[in-house]
């Protein structure tokens, strides 16, 4: 009897405290998910504003607007803000919101740590961004932080290092939370191979985070001691090696790339089956392909460094191991295509973004295969071809699938349907402009334009102008996204529990909007069976 009362008393907590205190003190996975997503959206526009400055200066040859040093700060902080501020927090936000719902858990396993890991981020990015106002300006050595150049930074250098430490600590805590939640809090009946792909890809991502974020922390700490405490890890004059930094950095950096993209595979693997009204093709192959990609990510790092002068055997190894990645990635693309085959397709905004992901990520995969070929990479390395490649996998790859996820689950979060028309406008403008923005950069790179330059020879003028116009169009189009979300939060047609006709999964078994507390009683076998699809 006492037990029942406790449960009842707990239910009364359904109303969170009002005002700012709710958000500062919250341990609720949905609130924290929202915080992460809002933060990610803010950083997306901060990083995006820097991209606009970059494209403005590159609109035509000659220096028109900014000093070259400031331009370098723009590219550097744009990269850091987008990777660590926009994409990673978006994934953690989606994980917070959706993983407990999808595995039938009442919350994340470590709710207080969850709050802490979020609230580190605003401090981390404040520290990074006030670098613009200290002597020497913001970090300008590239997001890859290569010494000795990065050691020439001004007062913002130690601030950026500390900011990265905070981001890393936040990511590690987020990853621990995801792993513990998935491993320990799945509802009875949700076996590992009954988990939705988003949960699977996040589980693998979380292991990658735990394995590599400490490596990043170590490498930037060595930078710090080289700068302030007289060590010579990366200085040849003291017996160190600047290339060693690159090896350590990319041992973090390549898995990091997959940290940004594996959850995208998960989202797309949820969205395409829903709007094809057909279960995912080759579920187990998808899980194993994800795990293979994660494993390969640890043995390919030096393909980022083919021009540093490695021994032949090293270049061969990293070329061949990198080419292997095409196999599991190909399996994924084929499986998504086979999921649509003999399906019944409709094209709501989540599906549109997932389809754009499918086509454009594949283009990024093709340029990735070209980059793997070491002798050819001597020509591509550090040119706009590389810029085009990684923006294809990160913008229509990672960011479009974040948008697909938001469009997919937004009615579940807000309880309202959003304007399909506005969503489609947002999609078509984004999909067209992203190609105008990034496709010409392939040509620029092949024609010989290095990356990270504030000004260029006149033969690069035409495609740069096209790219800049695409950039401005893409940037403006993104303003539709917060407008749509704001309108959907404020009101709209009431969303049913099962928002999408073809959707499966436990998140559709709870009402829309999802109550403040869900799955305090684990889902029934019937609910699991109804949600299961493979």
């Amino acid at each position: 009897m006492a037990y029942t009362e406790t449960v009842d008393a707990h239910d009364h907590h359904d109303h969170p405290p009002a005002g700012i205190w709710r958000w500062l003190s919250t341990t609720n996975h949905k609130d924290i998910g929202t915080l992460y997503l809002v933060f990610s959206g803010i950083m997306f526009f901060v990083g995006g504003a820097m991209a606009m400055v970059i494209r403005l200066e590159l609109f035509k040859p000659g220096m028109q607007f900014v000093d070259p040093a400031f331009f370098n700060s723009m590219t550097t902080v744009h990269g850091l803000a987008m990777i660590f501020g926009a994409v990673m927090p978006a994934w953690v936000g989606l994980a917070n919101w959706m993983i407990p719902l999808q595995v039938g858990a009442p919350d994340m396993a470590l709710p207080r740590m969850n709050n802490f890991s979020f609230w580190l981020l605003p401090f981390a990015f404040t520290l990074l961004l006030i670098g613009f106002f200290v002597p020497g300006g913001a970090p300008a050595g590239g997001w890859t932080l290569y010494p000795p150049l990065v050691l020439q930074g001004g007062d913002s250098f130690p601030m950026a290092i500390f900011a990265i430490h905070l981001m890393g600590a936040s990511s590690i805590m987020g990853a621990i939370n995801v792993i513990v939640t998935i491993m320990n809090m799945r509802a009875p009946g949700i076996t590992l191979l009954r988990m939705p792909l988003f949960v699977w890809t996040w589980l693998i991502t979380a292991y990658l985070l735990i394995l590599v974020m400490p490596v990043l922390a170590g490498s930037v700490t060595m930078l710090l001691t080289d700068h302030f405490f007289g060590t010579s890890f990366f200085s040849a004059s003291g017996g160190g090696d600047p290339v060693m930094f690159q090896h350590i950095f990319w041992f973090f950096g390549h898995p990091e790339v997959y940290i940004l993209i594996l959850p995208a595979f998960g989202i797309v693997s949820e969205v395409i089956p829903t709007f094809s009204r057909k279960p995912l093709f080759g579920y187990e192959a998808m899980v194993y392909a994800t795990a293979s990609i994660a494993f390969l990510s640890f043995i390919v790092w030096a393909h980022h460094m083919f021009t540093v002068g490695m021994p032949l055997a090293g270049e061969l190894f990293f070329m061949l191991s990198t080419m292997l990645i095409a196999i599991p990635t190909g399996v994924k693309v084929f499986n998504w295509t086979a999921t649509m085959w003999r399906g019944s397709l409709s094209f709501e905004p989540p599906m549109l973004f997932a389809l754009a992901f499918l086509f454009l990520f594949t283009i990024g995969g093709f340029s990735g295969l070209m980059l793997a070929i070491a002798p050819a990479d001597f020509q591509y390395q550090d040119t706009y071809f590389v810029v085009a490649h990684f923006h294809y996998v990160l913008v229509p790859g990672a960011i479009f699938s974040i948008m697909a996820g938001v469009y997919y689950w937004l009615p579940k979060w807000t309880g309202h349907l959003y304007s399909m028309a506005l969503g489609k406008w947002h999609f078509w403008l984004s999909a067209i402009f992203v190609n105008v923005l990034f496709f010409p950069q392939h040509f620029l790179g092949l024609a010989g334009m290095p990356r990270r330059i504030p000004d260029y020879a006149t033969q690069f003028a035409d495609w740069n102008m096209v790219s800049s116009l695409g950039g401005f169009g893409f940037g403006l189009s993104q303003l539709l996204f917060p407008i749509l979300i704001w309108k959907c939060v404020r009101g709209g047609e009431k969303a049913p529990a099962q928002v999408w006709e073809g959707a499966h999964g436990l998140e559709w078994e709870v009402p829309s909007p999802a109550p403040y507390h869900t799955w305090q009683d684990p889902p029934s076998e019937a609910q699991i069976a109804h949600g299961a699809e493979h």
Partner: protein
Amino acid sequence: MKMKKSGLLLSGLAAALLTMVAPTAQAAWALNMTQGISAISRNIYSLHMMVFWVCVVLAVLVFGVMIYSLVRFRKSQGAVPDTSLVHNTKAEIIWTAIPIAILVVMAVPATRTLIETDDATKTELTIRVTGYQWKWGYEYVGSGVTVLSTLDRDSNFARQLGSGIDPNSVPNYLLNVDHALVVPADTKVRLLISAQDVIHSWWVPALAIKKDAIPGFVNEAWFKIDAANTGLFRGQCAELCGRDHGFMPIVIDVRSKADFEAWLRTQKALQQPADAAAPAAAPATAAPASAANAAATVRAAPARS
């Protein structure tokens, strides 16, 4: 106008002169890399094109199936889902095996080219390349001749923030230097690449050489330019190296073996003023360099520790 400008130039090297008066028509809207001027660069170009066409064929097939599905299996056209189609071992084996085969086919020529680029034996001339913030230093090993190569003055004026100078009016804007690196054609030349301050990367697309210049370490690269491909070829620093990373171009001036030898003799004589015979030797070269300009080269030569 051009003659007047060239008169102002410090450099008397034919490289700079040629650069100034050479037609500036450049490939706008360029889509692809060029084949370059050596056997290796052509190999790399063919490798690039082979992988590109493989990607195009795969893209046509994969996107074809995707687009067919998008058109054929629309709910609005009454498509009924076949929910039993969730697994097909045969198809999955095929679409794993075929990519493996394609990768092997690509790996063979890639490996062969990689081994070729690595073979820096039997070189006939060695040049030391040193990256500085933000210029390139060259030293012809053995002869002691040095060249310091910085962005040319016209580009440097025009590239200042708010200079008011139209970059289109500057020939080879940002791709021109005061002193080019003079190299012989039809000769296997070895480069020993390093840097003084931060990491740079020496890149000349026509040679398909991009090699990082790393302080404290020496990287090796080599090229053998076809005898017919004399002329000027341009490149840039390819590794972010600070504020003026975008403003340290590379120009190589490829000459016939005989012209190169003559040039090197002259430079050697000019750069060693202790040698009394030096000034007299100057007029004998194919591309005469004035004593004043040569002196400038000597002054600008990097101080080496």
